[in-house]
């Protein structure tokens, strides 16, 4: 009996396809039975994590970015610090009692990450804020920003936390893990330096 080779080949291919399709359906059934719950759980975890990241960014993003910028004077570096701070929070799940502690934790980590970048000379050069103030022709703000920038880091950080974030010297001491007397002394010296820099500009030394 003669068997057409092409017909045999065609039947083999059809059988192969049928077997593969059946196997795929079984795998799909098994996936829904076994793996789907685990994947759903992982997806829920990821969704919870995303919601947490969005909440942190909405509630504390500006504060973290501004503190990082006060240290680094560069938007890309400040953005990196903001991202790394949130990442540390999400990965380490710190023990915190209330939202104030949460913000303090984030600012402490952002400060440490910023200081690490300064210590390892990993700071870019461009100061977008300086350019922005110049473009707006806000000379008064440019003077103040230049003066604050010229302060040593140890004065800048306490000045930012005290005058911008509104923390007390005791709270800053806890946040930066230093004595309150050190915070007070750095605030005083920072103010004195600012005063001497800005004394030639009328009106800017008010309140110093």
């Amino acid at each position, binding site marked *: 009996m003669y068997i057409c080779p092409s017909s045999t080949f065609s039947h083999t291919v059809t059988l192969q396809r049928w*077997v593969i399709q059946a196997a795929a359906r079984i795998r799909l059934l098994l996936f829904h039975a076994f793996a789907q719950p685990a994947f759903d*759980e992982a997806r829920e975890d990821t969704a919870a994590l995303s919601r947490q990241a969005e909440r942190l*960014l909405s509630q504390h993003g500006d504060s973290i970015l501004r503190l990082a910028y006060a240290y680094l004077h560069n938007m890309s570096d400040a953005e990196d610090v903001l991202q790394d701070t949130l990442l540390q929070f999400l990965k380490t799940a710190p023990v915190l009692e209330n939202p104030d502690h949460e913000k303090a934790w984030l600012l402490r980590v952002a400060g440490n990450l910023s200081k690490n970048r300064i210590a390892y000379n990993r700071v870019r050069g461009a100061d977008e804020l300086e350019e922005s103030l110049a473009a707006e022709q806000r000379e008064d703000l440019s003077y103040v920003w230049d003066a604050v920038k010229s302060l040593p880091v140890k004065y800048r950080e306490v000045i930012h936390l005290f005058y911008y974030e509104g923390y007390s010297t005791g709270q800053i001491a806890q946040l930066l893990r230093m004595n309150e007397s050190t915070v007070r002394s750095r605030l005083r010296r920072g103010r004195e330096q600012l005063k001497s820099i800005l004394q030639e500009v009328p009106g800017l030394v008010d309140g110093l």
Partner: protein
Amino acid sequence: MWTAYRDIMEHVSVTEDMRRRILTRLEENTSVPARPAIRFPLYRRLVAAAACLLLLLGGILAAGRVFSSPEVPSDLGNVGNGIPSFTEVSSLQELSQTVGFPVEGLSHIPFTVTETHYTVLMENTAEIRYIGDGTSAVYRKTPGQTDPSGDYGSYAAVLQWDISGLTVTLKGDGTLFSLALWQDGDYSYSAQLSTPVSTAVWENMLSA
């Protein structure tokens, strides 16, 4: 002057683009990487498909039992890695059973404990949170050599203290300390107090 500084800082804020970038990168950094697709040789796929076919044709009744099985395939065990997960349990015994190693907890806590919470973090870190009136203590134990505290801030003072033959690292302001880290055998431990205490109190708490 300080009004000017606040005006300056208002120029620094999280833009929509920055927000999107950060959330995307955070998601990438905290998600499970997709498994690479593996292509098997045709004969192995056919054998697998045939096995599935046999399973389908010969085991419909058995499949009913398989679907009702609560067991999850073991190769899904790493789903969720990198995503912080928290499971609260009801007792110290259940905590030990869930993490798979004995958990001792703290004794001689320097305040009256009104609530105790037991939590499994990241599948194998045990956490006990002791709550008092306006204060708290958190104890963590994890296998390996990693610091389980989640506190990566810098402290003004870090000292090594021998307590009951263990070298304990205490972190604080030099007089009072809020964080203790130590290792014993195959485990790493941390204890954190919301209200810093002296080395004597730590010694009393950890030597018991």
